[in-house]
């Protein structure tokens, strides 16, 4: 049984013809970690608020643990949420913050005390229990916010960009901690972020959203390796996928694209493209930076594209090398050992098996 199921969820604001959510269909199982990711204004936060019941939806259904909760008040949905701003009650101590939801639900006092202790131990915030939120650091507030959510043992946890207010180092730490927590507790979770690294590292399932629509729904690997369209391909991955304008042609019965760097145009054959589609039309070729290697000399009869090195950016673990192909800048991710000189001509080898092709106008995937 699905833990959470969204059926054709739509949301329209006021009289505006623009829809914030245009028919969302998502289903996840118990214990799964769903990421909603997309640029700001894509509808991910609206969708999260709709799941929580904080915003009404215009049509569709939200089913939680088999029960239709579309019209149920947030307090009766058995959901807990961690907010970007933490939203700790400023006049209450940490203990009171964690206990508030239990108190409202008239849990007996000894159970509340036991639950607060359990959560505090889990998150290692026992020593903070009598403090007010204003006396805590950002990371500590973050933990308390998670504690407040964990205390109620709800059916579903919602995280609304919980790490975006932390500094870079703490963000990485907390990310790992959230992942660890999820592996231990197996809580069903929906997590909103605009950070594609968080999406890749944390999620079991990722829904990439744009303009109120789910562009692609799948595992992080599927989304990375097999992007459904140009938007998903460009949004996921850092440094981003390279997009090279090409024409799809045929040459001796095979589909090819021609690439030109410094020197001749080289035809690269595309095994995955049906020849019927290769009728000279324009397309955008997508290739991730790590799918390009630099060769020093000819190996076998693989066609190599030669190009001049424009910029070299060592990042430590690897080095980013920028070259120009077909008039656009292309990024290659290389091991630091074979860094070429700036201005030198290098031969590029493309991992043709993993190339993707998109239609320029619609951004739809061709192959």
């Amino acid at each position, binding site marked *: 049984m699905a833990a959470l199921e969204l059926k054709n969820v739509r949301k329209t604001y006021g009289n505006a013809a623009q829809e914030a959510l245009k028919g969302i269909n998502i289903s996840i199982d118990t214990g799964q970690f769903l990421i909603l990711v997309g640029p700001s204004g894509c509808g991910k936060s609206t969708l999260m608020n709709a799941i929580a019941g904080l915003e009404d939806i215009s049509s569709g259904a939200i089913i939680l643990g088999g029960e239709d909760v579309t*019209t*149920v*008040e947030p307090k*009766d949905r058995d959901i807990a949420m961690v907010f970007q701003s933490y939203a700790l009650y400023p006049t209450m101590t940490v203990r009171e913050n964690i206990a508030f939801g239990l108190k409202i639900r008239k849990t007996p006092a000894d159970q509340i005390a036991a639950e607060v202790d359990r959560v505090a131990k889990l998150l290692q915030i026992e020593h903070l229990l009598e403090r007010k939120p204003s006396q805590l650091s950002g990371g500590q507030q973050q933990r308390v916010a998670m504690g407040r959510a964990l205390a109620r043992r709800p059916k579903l946890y919602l995280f609304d960009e919980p790490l975006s207010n932390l500094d870079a180092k703490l963000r990485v730490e907390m990310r790992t901690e959230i992942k660890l927590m999820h592996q231990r507790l197996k809580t069903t979770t929906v997590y909103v972020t605009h950070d594609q690294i968080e999406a890749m590292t944390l999620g079991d399932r990722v829904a990439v959203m744009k303009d109120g629509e789910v562009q692609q729904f799948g595992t992080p690997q599927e989304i990375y390796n097999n992007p459904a369209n140009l938007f998903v391909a460009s949004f996921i991955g850092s440094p981003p996928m390279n997009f090279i304008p090409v024409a799809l042609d045929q040459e001796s019965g095979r589909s090819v694209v021609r690439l030109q760097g410094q020197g001749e145009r080289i035809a690269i054959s595309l095994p995955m493209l049906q020849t019927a589609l290769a009728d000279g039309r324009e397309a955008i070729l997508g290739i991730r930076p790590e799918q390009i290697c630099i060769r020093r000399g000819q190996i076998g009869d693989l066609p190599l594209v030669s190009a001049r090195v424009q910029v070299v950016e060592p990042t430590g673990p690897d080095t980013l090398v920028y070259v120009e192909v077909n008039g656009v800048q292309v990024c290659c991710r290389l091991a630091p050992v074979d860094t070429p000189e700036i201005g030198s001509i290098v031969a590029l080898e493309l991992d043709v098996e993993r190339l993707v092709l998109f239609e320029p106008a619609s951004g739809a995937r061709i192959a």
Partner: protein
Amino acid sequence: MSLSEVQIMRTGTSTSVRKPDRLQKWLPKLVLAPTAVAMIVCLYGYMLWTAVISLTTSRFMPVYNFAGFAQFERLLANDRWIVACKNLAIFGGMFILLCLIIGVFFAILLDQRIRREGFIRTIYLYPMALSMIVTGTAWKWLLNPGLGLDKLLRDWGWEGFRFDWLVDTDRVIYCLLIAAIWQASGFVMAMFLAGLRGVDSAIIRAAQIDGASLPTIYLRIVLPSLRPVFFSAVMILSHIAIKSFDLVMAMTAGGPGYSSDLPAVFMYQHTFTRGQMGLGAASSVLMLGAVLAILVPYLYSELRSKRHG
């Protein structure tokens, strides 16, 4: 069990589950309802009612025989109303102007790292806590011809000093002006001081490095950036001026004769003591019109700037 019984039972249970939910949805509206009703009735409804009365010949009691705009014609031909409006123009115009000048001047002085600034500020602002009736009573005594300022300065050796503006039909309005400025100028000062404290000091330092003198910095850089404060201050001051009623009642009751009448006093006396309800209503409608003429552009610009920024 028949089908209808099942349906009744089902609807019965479903409402019992949904009822608290629906109540929650309605609570904010329920909470606001009394205020909304009070506003619609006691503000907008009464405004309309007053407007209706202004179109009738009501005198001591409201009667609803419509006389068109006869009351307004009478009003505009009424010398006393004309005097009241002229007085308001003089009083309001000078009140706003002088309060602004005094307020800005002292705000700038107080902004120069003054010792005991808080104490001085407290003294400038305390008149704002007083009732205009108290202010009027005090200044009526201070400006008393014979025993007030008059006598003080003669006692101090200025033999020929005369100060009898309070009984001078041409000058009595300036007595009101003095008292009103005493009461409100400290408030304007406080507004501008708050505004000055909000000016980015980096801009000032940049100007100093560019070689601008202190007066230039204030005139060319600081004051222009306080435009919103100017607008708010003018708004509040003109509002005080148009509504000012208490001060006149306490200091002069409109006298001598009707030389210090203001529209608010005119309205009160005609409506409640002279049995000219229709005329009084007409005068209050014109007062509303005057306030709207100032308020609507202000609110419009306020709302627009909020939308843009």
